[in-house]
Every structure is written in structure tokens, then in C-alpha cells.
């Protein structure tokens, strides 16, 4: 369920800015290719694709994507970083996927039946799908993947969803049935490509030692050609792809660790597709050259960045239950005061250059579960000071810093290195809080240290982090009071019995209206209590060379979902692929 073994490269990753530093959440693997959001094509670019003769779809050419991070392993269930999932997602498909109108549709599965009680899902797989080595894809492959993922010996971060399955059966060659212990609303969304493995290649072998991690075999739109460490991963189109042969013959994933270098490569025309930083998007790509040769896209990412407070000072060792609350941050007035003292719009304007919007809560805007009518905190430093005074904070010694019981209001915000957007956000918050008499230190940490030593061990006062959200609104792991053990994700120790109940309700019913009601109420409570200060929802801002046609970004899905339909008209093709 969670992706923990983030690699450094992922951290510094530019492609889809929101993923630059995050903890990936909840069925993320389903949407790794399908970056959701409502899509807006930049006004400078001509978005309409006309199917006249000049631009008729044609086979050929190569798409070069630039990436900061190198993939680590191309077996989805073992991979933790976004680069690995990006590449593996082109090679291996899942049973289901999100369509561009946000409905779940079959991918390797043709259709499925859900039992009346909602506890059992029967997948009917498409027939005749072949692994690229020629073997047929069958229900046994799914079963093998399922067994491997729930095996304690498999070092995967995704087993939690599959442990909810009470019984898995192969009914026949093309039918696979999973029966759940209790109703589990997100169940269907979890059957993405993490659970698909080529049984005929892996059976009896140790998956962690398998060469498939470096030379994967799949059945997706692209098949693996070669991986030159530190340089590139090369894929070529799968002519037998069950949704049709992709037009673009080659897909090259080029690894360029320095963002400035990558941008120069883009400018020189050596890469065709990368994610832009806000500055690059707004200030560096407005020239006639870029307008002519590239097309920029922009859509809100299904993610948000927040500042979280450690609400608990002392925890019970094993359960993570809070024994002693944090004297400052557990006071709602203090959290609200800090929210009033931060100008979210300033952060959006100054750090994101307008490429995003202030966040109001923990759910993905523009989805059915998002509640827009919650308490918002407009920038109001006077109100902030007033709330702090009410909470007992005054500057009694005249040093410009508020104090209470002889202790000055000083705390440290931790965030991760290598992410300028986040570091700049912290810097702005530091500056704003200084003006209401709170002294903030900013400390940046390398990602794995940050997570392992500080988040997991709860050694922090405040953090700036982000969540990448799946399209299912289940946020049990973030907010439920039982999820406070070491390494679990309610690391701020939020505890509200009403929220607990609503979360449980939300994941145990299939009735969308019921779920919606529960999640709307949760958002109201969170907005009032502010265990996090929700800062902003960043936009994804990719740029693609203008010769690529057929890119149809869709609301909340992004652009990668139909990559097999992208093409370059014959006379515009740049690279000749010699087979």
C-alpha cells in the first residue's frame, strides 16, 4: 500500500512535480500512469487535433522522456520509486485501470462480477493475451502474483490490500476469484499491475534474485529492449499489444540527474518529454522557440502538500497510543493561529508561480468525495495573534518571540532535501511566522533518513510533506487513531473517535452516497481541527515535443493513459528506427 523505499532519484524527480517528494498512498500503483486532475492545455498551444492528411497517424519515431531518477527494479510489486513504476507501467498491465472518465474499466480483465454481498470479485480475463515471450497470460499468473505479494518473504510494500482477501481461487484458465473477509470498498481498484507476474518465468525462483527485475517481460504497449545503467532504458512497441500496436516505435527513458542539465537537453531538442518546475513552466518556456516546438500541459495533480504537527509528546512503545499530548500543538487554537498566519496564496504565487491552488483539505479536488465547503483560513495575522493570546502565548520578555510558562515559541520544521518547491515553502512559512512572534527553524533531511529516523520514530515537531492520493477516497491509514504505530501513517497521532467511525464506515460500504456523506463530514472536521495545515495542490506541468499528436489529457487521469495512441505524422518523424 505504501511506498517507502523511495530512492534519492525519485526525490529529485521532476516529472510531475507533486511526486517529487511524497509518500505514495493508497492504490497508487493503479494510477501511476494515469496522473489525474482536470486537464488544461496551456493557452499558448493549439490543443485541437485535426485529423487531416498532414497529421494522419503513422507508425514510427521515438519518444525520449527525461527523468532525474533511474528506475531501480522493473517488477512492480518490488518497486518503490516512481521511475520504476513509470517504466514498468508501460511494460506490464493490471487487471483493471481507470478510464478517462474516471470509471474503472477492464484492462487484462475483460469484465468482472461482484457478488451480491460485495465480498467476492470474479475476474473474467481477456483471452489470447500473450506475454511478449509468447506464453499466454492466464489466471494462474494472477494467482501466482497474489501468492507472491502476500508472501511474508516478498519485500513488497503493497501486500496490505491483498491481505484483506480471505480466499483466492483460479476457477478456470481465464477466471480468477477473490473473496474478502469484510466489505472492502477500494477492493477493485487494488488489482493493478503489482499483482501480475509471469508464473512460467518465476515459478520456483526467488523473485528478488530474478533477472526479470532488470529485463522484464510483460504484455503492455511496450516491451523491454535494454537498460544501460545510469543512461537510459529503451523500450520498443509491442506489435501484439491487445489494444493495438502503439504508433510510436520506441520509447527511451533517459536518465539525467541534474535538473538544469535536463532542461538544456530539452531546449536542444534531445528529449521530448519532461516535467517542468514552476519556474521553468512560467518563465523559461515562453519563448517563440518553445511555443513552436513544444506543447505544455497543466493539470492539478491528485496530491497535496501540507504542514503536519506532532500532536503527541510521548507514545506507548508498542501501540503508538499517545500518553502525553504535545503542550502547544495539541491546542486547536495554536494550530488555527498558525493557519491564519500563513498566506497560502503567497506560497502558490511565490513558490508555484500560480501553478496550483491553495489546499483546503485532504481529498482530491474535483472528485466526488471532495467537499469544497469547509472552513478556510484566509491570511489574517491579527486573528492569529489574537488566537495565540487566548491560548496563553504572549511576549513577556520583549524579545519579539512569544512565550508561555517561560518557554519561547520556537520549533523546527523538517522537510526533505532536493525539493526546492518545498524548501521555499518552508522558508516562506518561517518568514511569516516570525512576524507573529514564532521562531521557526528549517531543517532539510535526505529522504530516507527523514522517513526512517524522523517520521517513523516520530522525532519531529512539524513537517512539510505531501500525499499523493489514489482515486479511491479511503484515507483510513492517514487519519484512523489505530494507525499510529511506528511506521504507520497517522504519524501526527490524530485521534478523533468520530473520524475513526466515519473512516470505518466509508471503507465498509459500497454505497457511493453513504461514502460521500461520511467523507464530507470527515473533511469538515479536519478543516476545523487542522491536524495538518493543508497548504497547496500543485499542478502537474509536463511538456511534450509538438510533433507528438494524439495526446488527449483527460480530467483526473492525465496524459499517459493512451500512450499507445500517440503518434508522429510521417513527415514529422525525427528518428528512424532501424530494426
Amino acid at each position, binding site marked *: 500500500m505504501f511506498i517507502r523505499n523511495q530512492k534519492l532519484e525519485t526525490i529529485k524527480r521532476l516529472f510531475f512535480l507533486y511526486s517529487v517528494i511524497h509518500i505514495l498512498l493508497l492504490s497508487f500503483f493503479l494510477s501511476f500512469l494515469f496522473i489525474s486532475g482536470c486537464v488544461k492545455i496551456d493557452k499558448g498551444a493549439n490543443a485541437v487535433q485535426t485529423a487531416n492528411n498532414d497529421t494522419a497517424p503513422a507508425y514510427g519515431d521515438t519518444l525520449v522522456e527525461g527523468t532525474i531518477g533511474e528506475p531501480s527494479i522493473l517488477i512492480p510489486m518490488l518497486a518503490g520509486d516512481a521511475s520504476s513504476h513509470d517504466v514498468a507501467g508501460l511494460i506490464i498491465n493490471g487487471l483493471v485501470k481507470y478510464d478517462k472518465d474516471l470509471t474503472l474499466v477492464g484492462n487484462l480483465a475483460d469484465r468482472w462480477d461482484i457478488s451480491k454481498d460485495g465480498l467476492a470479485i470474479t475476474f473474467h480475463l481477456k483471452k489470447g493475451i500473450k506475454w511478449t515471450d509468447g506464453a499466454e497470460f492466464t489466471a494462474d499468473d494472477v494467482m501466482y502474483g497474489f501468492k507472491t505479494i502476500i508472501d511474508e518473504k516478498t519485500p513488497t510494500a503493497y501486500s496490505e490490500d491483498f491481505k484483506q482477501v480471505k480466499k483466492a481461487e483460479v476457477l478456470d484458465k481465464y477466471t480468477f476469484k477473490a473473496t474478502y473477509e469484510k466489505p472492502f470498498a477500494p477492493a477493485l481498484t487494488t488489482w493493478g499491475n503489482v499483482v501480475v507476474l509471469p508464473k512460467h518465468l518465476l515459478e520456483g525462483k526467488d523473485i528478488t534474485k530474478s533477472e526479470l527485475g532488470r529485463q522484464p517481460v510483460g504484455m503492455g504497449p511496450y516491451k523491454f529492449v535494454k537498460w544501460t545503467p545510469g543512461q537510459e532504458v529503451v523500450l520498443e512497441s509491442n506489435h501484439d499489444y491487445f489494444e493495438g500496436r502503439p504508433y510510436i516505435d520506441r520509447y527511451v527513458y533517459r536518465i539525467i540527474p541534474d535538473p538544469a542539465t535536463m532542461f538544456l537537453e530539452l531546449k536542444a531538442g534531445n528529449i521530448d518529454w519532461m516535467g517542468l518546475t514552476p*519556474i521553468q513552466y512560467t*518563465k*523559461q518556456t515562453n519563448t517563440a522557440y518553445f511555443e513552436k516546438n513544444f506543447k505544455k500541459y497543466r493539470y492539478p495533480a491528485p496530491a497535496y502538500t501540507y504542514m503536519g504537527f506532532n500532536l503527541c509528546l510521548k507514545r506507548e512503545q508498542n501501540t503508538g497510543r499517545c500518553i502525553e499530548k504535545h503542550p502547544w500543538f495539541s491546542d486547536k487554537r495554536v494550530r488555527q493561529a498558525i493557519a491564519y498566519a500563513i498566506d497560502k496564496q*503567497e506560497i502558490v504565487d511565490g*513558490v508555484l508561480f500560480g501553478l496550483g491552488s491553495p489546499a483546503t483539505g485532504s481529498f482530491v479536488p474535483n472528485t466526488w468525495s471532495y467537499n469544497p465547503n469547509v472552513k478556510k483560513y484566509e491570511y489574517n495575522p491579527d486573528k492569529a495573534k489574537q488566537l495565540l493570546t487566548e491560548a496563553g502565548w504572549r511576549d513577556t520578555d520583549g524579545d519579539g518571540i512569544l512565550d508561555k510558562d517561560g518557554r519561547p515559541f520556537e520549533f523546527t520544521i523538517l522537510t526533505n532535501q532536493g525539493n*526546492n518547491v518545498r524548501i521555499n515553502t518552508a522558508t516562506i512559512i518561517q*518568514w511569516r511566522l516570525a512576524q507573529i512572534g514564532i521562531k521557526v527553524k528549517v*531543517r532539510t533531511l535526505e529522504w530516507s*533518513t527523514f522517513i526512517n529516523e524522523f517520521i517513523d520514530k516520530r522525532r519531529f515537531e512539524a513537517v512539510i510533506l505531501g500525499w499523493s492520493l489514489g482515486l479511491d477516497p479511503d484515507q483510513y491509514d492517514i487519519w484512523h487513531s489505530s494507525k499510529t504505530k511506528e511506521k504507520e501513517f497517522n504519524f501526527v497521532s490524530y485521534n478523533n473517535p468520530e473520524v475513526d467511525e466515519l473512516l470505518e464506515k466509508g471503507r465498509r460500504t459500497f454505497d457511493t452516497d453513504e461514502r460521500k456523506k461520511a467523507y464530507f463530514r470527515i473533511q469538515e472536521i479536519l478543516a476545523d481541527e487542522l491536524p495538518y495545515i493543508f497548504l497547496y495542490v500543485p499542478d502537474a506541468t509536463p511538456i511534450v515535443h509538438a510533433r507528438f499528436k494524439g495526446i488527449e489529457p483527460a480530467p483526473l487521469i492525465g496524459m499517459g493513459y493512451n500512450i499507445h495512441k500517440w503518434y508522429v505524422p510521417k513527415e514529422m518523424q525525427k528518428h528512424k528506427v532501424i530494426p
Partner: protein
Amino acid sequence: MNQSTLKSLFWRRFKKNRLAVIGGIIVFCLFAVAVLTPLIAPYNPDAINVKHVLESPSISHPFGTDDLGRDILSRVIYGSRISLAVGFVAVGIATIIGVILGALSGYYGGWFDTVTMRFVDIMLSIPTFFLILAVIAMLEPGIWNIMIVIGITSWMGVARLVRAEFLSLKEREFVLSARALGASDFRIIFRHILPNAMSPVLVSAVLGIAGAVLVESALSFLGIGVQPPTASWGNILTIGKDNIEIAWWISVFPGIAIFITVLAYNLLGEGIRDSIDPRLKI
């Protein structure tokens, strides 16, 4: 030759070397800037203004502003303190370790000398920058860690120099007579020999400061230098690097600051060396 003629000889040679004199003047100015920082910086270096982001140099912001609208001139001025601190503390640590180990092994010789010199060889064969990188990343980047780590990975040259000086000085008459008068080893090492062995140490220290300033900027490039928002030349330059085509001023001014500083220390160091003894190899 007595002390005073040596000194005047030194000055005569030094003054003849115009590049070295220029280096010395620049170094002096850098000190002045670092000391007077709060007086000469026009703005609070941390003051953010998102309405004036990435502004090119103007009268109100002579060096322009960075990606958060902070005044680059003020940041470069405050950064000079950090760079000087890194240079001096790191070199100070290296010099202290190097002088003590070098003096003891040069003076006593024997197994201590063998072990120390073997240790020097070992340290010299490990790529120092790798070592610095590994240690800082494991401990956590921060100005103190950076200074300490640079210090403890760059003492070897000093140790060798001091040892060589001690080897030649310890048989000299003034040492022998001090010993005959019953002076303790400690006194002989630190009062008699060391002052005479310090000139190459001085040169290598001046050159070392330049090196430390560069190491800090390289670490900043890799994201493990002095951490923002504290301004250091290295991290201003790194912000500038990502905006090099639209905001040259962010990287050019700290770049020039680093360049001038490193150049000045090198010229000064070389000048001192040539004036003491042109054949010294440091």
C-alpha cells in the same frame, strides 16, 4: 641572518609580487565585509518578497533578487561570513591536527612516526571528497559538520610539511643547546622548533582556505552544503544554476565572489611562499 633582516627580506620580496599584494588586499577587504556585514547589507538577507521574484539588478537591488524575492547583494554579503567561517574553522582544525601529528612524529621518530606517516598515506589514498560526502550525508549537513569534516580530511599535507621541517630543525644548534640546557621536550617542540617551522604551514593554510570555500560550493551543488535558508555562496549559486538562463545575476554574483576569494587566497598564499622561499613545494 637575524630575524629582522629575514622579515625585511620577506617584505621586499612580497611587495615585488604585485599579484600577491592584490590578493592580500582582497583578503583584507573580505574580512572587512564579513565583520561589517550587518552594517553594509542593504536588506535582511532572509526577507522574502514574492512580488519581486527574479528581478534583474537595479538601483534598489544592485545584484537583483532570487526566486523568493530576496536581495542577492545582502545574501552574498551574509554568505561571506559563512564562507570565511567554513574556510577558517576547517583549516584551523586541519592545521592543529597536522601540526601536532607532524611535530610529534618529526621530533620523536620511531614507531610513532612510522604509524603516523602510514596513516597519512592511507588518508591520502582515499578520495577525500568521497569521504566528506559519505560522512556529511550520514551525520547530516550543517555548517559545523561541514567544517569539521573538511578539517579532519585535509590535515595530511600539513602533517608532512611540519614533519619535514622538524626533521631538519631538530638537529640544529639552537635545539641542541636548548636540550643541553635541560628544556623539556614539550618546550623544545612548541617554543623552539615550531615557530621556525610555521612558515610553510601558513602558506598551506592560506591555500587550504581557498580549497574549503570550493568544497562548500561543491557540496551545495549536491544539496548537502550549508542548508538554506542560511545564505552561503554555494547555495545561492546552486539556486542560480537552475535559473541560469533567465536570471544570470543569481549565479554570477556569488560565482564571482567565490572566484575572487579563491583567487585572492591562492595569490596571497603563493606570494607568501615565494617570499619565504621560492623553492618550497606546497
